[in-house]
């Protein structure tokens, strides 16, 4: 599309805001286990999550929009994950990355929380053990799609 001098575009403010918001989803730096390594890999040259505007991993939950639960959540870690999610400002999204975060995975035992959706509302589940970086990129795409459609995060949990 070409917009010459003197021309202008009309759009709803909501749409523009959502477009901008969806192009700058900042994840929280929270690595848990194996999946965290693949989460780091998406920032590496071959996958380059910067193309989606999500390369800025924020260390403070106050500045993050997206929590990627990357790996098994141990019983001891669960309160910390919950607290970090509480500290994030609305609207916020959660990706449950990998089999362990989604359902406990191969660790059906006393130590692992059987699905992080029992403590925080999850928007997108990524299958795999660990998922490939492409899988995580697609999950971020789905989050962007939800944002463009006016989602506010935690839809699955509320519905």
């Amino acid at each position, binding site marked *: 599309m070409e917009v010459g001098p003197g021309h202008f575009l009309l759009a709803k403010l909501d749409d523009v805001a959502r477009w901008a918001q969806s192009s700058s989803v900042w994840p929280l730096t929270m690595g848990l286990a194996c999946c965290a390594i693949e989460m780091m890999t998406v920032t590496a*040259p071959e996958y380059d999550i910067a193309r989606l505007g999500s390369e800025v991993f924020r260390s403070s939950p106050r500045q993050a929009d997206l929590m990627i639960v990357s790996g098994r959540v141990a019983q001891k870690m669960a309160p910390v994950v919950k607290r970090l999610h509480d500290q994030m400002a609305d609207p916020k999204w959660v990706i449950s990355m990998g089999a362990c975060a989604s359902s406990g995975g191969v660790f059906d035992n006393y130590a692992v929380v059987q699905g992080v959706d029992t403590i925080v509302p999850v928007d997108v589940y990524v299958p795999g053990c660990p998922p490939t970086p492409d899988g995580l990129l697609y999950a971020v795409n789905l989050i962007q799609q939800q944002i463009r459609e006016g989602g506010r995060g935690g839809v699955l949990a509320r519905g």
Partner: protein
Amino acid sequence: MSTTERPTTPPEPMTPEIVSREGNSMVLSMGPQHPSTHGVLQIMLEIEGETVVKAEPEIGYLHTGIEKSAENLFWTQAQTVIERMDYLAPESNALCYALATERLLGIEGKIPERAQTIRVLFSELTRMASHCVWLGTHGIDIGAITVFFYCFDLRENLLDLQEAAGGARMHPNYMRIGGVNGDLPQGFLDRFDALLEKFPGRMRDLRGLLQANPIFQDRTIDVGTLTPEEAVRWNVTGPALRASGIAYDVRRAFPYCGFETYEFDVPTRTEGDAYARFLVRLDEMEESYKILKQVRKRLDTPGAVMIDDPKIAAPPKETIALSMEALIHHFKIVSEGFRVPPGDAYASVESPRGELGYYIVSDGGNRPYRIRTRPPSLYNLQVLKHIAPGNLIADLVVMIGSLDPVFGEVDR
């Protein structure tokens, strides 16, 4: 909130005493969610100004119950969860577990030559890949982000090889009790050659980025110094021990998989600081490259990759459709596993982090009775308590990075 039927675990409130003051000092919790703790480590710090007076590592935030889970799985299945302990070097874990089980089965000397070579190949590839992650994240901790991109680019090539052979990028589960799971796929050797060709140049890049960098040297030289006596007393192994001047390498001291037939050096330094550990790891990657070149020569010889013992190995896939006996045999091995004679065995390998050991006990069943791991990270991490006091908080980050703990392994 979620309406799932799963048993929920109500989150307990965290301890309110995260920050408190006592006299002139202050107690500060670093972690468990912290960008430079390399996983979910919490360190309770007592600080005066910016100087650390006391550091207490608090572990267990990734306790997965892997040892317990493994007791409910067949001997072969247990390997799946065991690979997820040290997720940066899954092949080292799988190999060590396989070696211990083979010792118990009494088939140590019967592993085919080619299988041994492939095992060496993957244990060295995984060492390189692990050191790539370590170097990339260590660089980020110190503020040198470029090195991360170079490291992960190289790591992609290494993972591609794992994926080609085992089918998965990170946990290929390619090592098996009695050998490896199938021969190397077509086209593998060409990709391996390409990697061997690329590696020296990439190594020069990595060294060029950091080794003579004055900022990097300022941050790492004389930080976290560990004397040889202390290192031994704290049971430190791996690059951290060798950086303190002790040339202990399991590949040399207790060779396995035919490491005694390969030519390689055990790089050591005498300084014992974070910079020495950095240099030792870089040298190790080059030694791995030397080993891989020797492996490449041996891979030209074809041969069996799995032990010829119907008690342990399933029949080849091709025979299953043709022979009823092979089908029954395959079904038995898959559905029941095999039995291991009662007793216990210990085996250790040199993982990228140090001496990794598995002590396994069998009661004669088709599942392990008990598996106990000797994770190098746990022993290496405990030394933090000793080297941290008197240093700045910022240097603590360097120390953690230079010890290279992996929390899957520390907490298990």
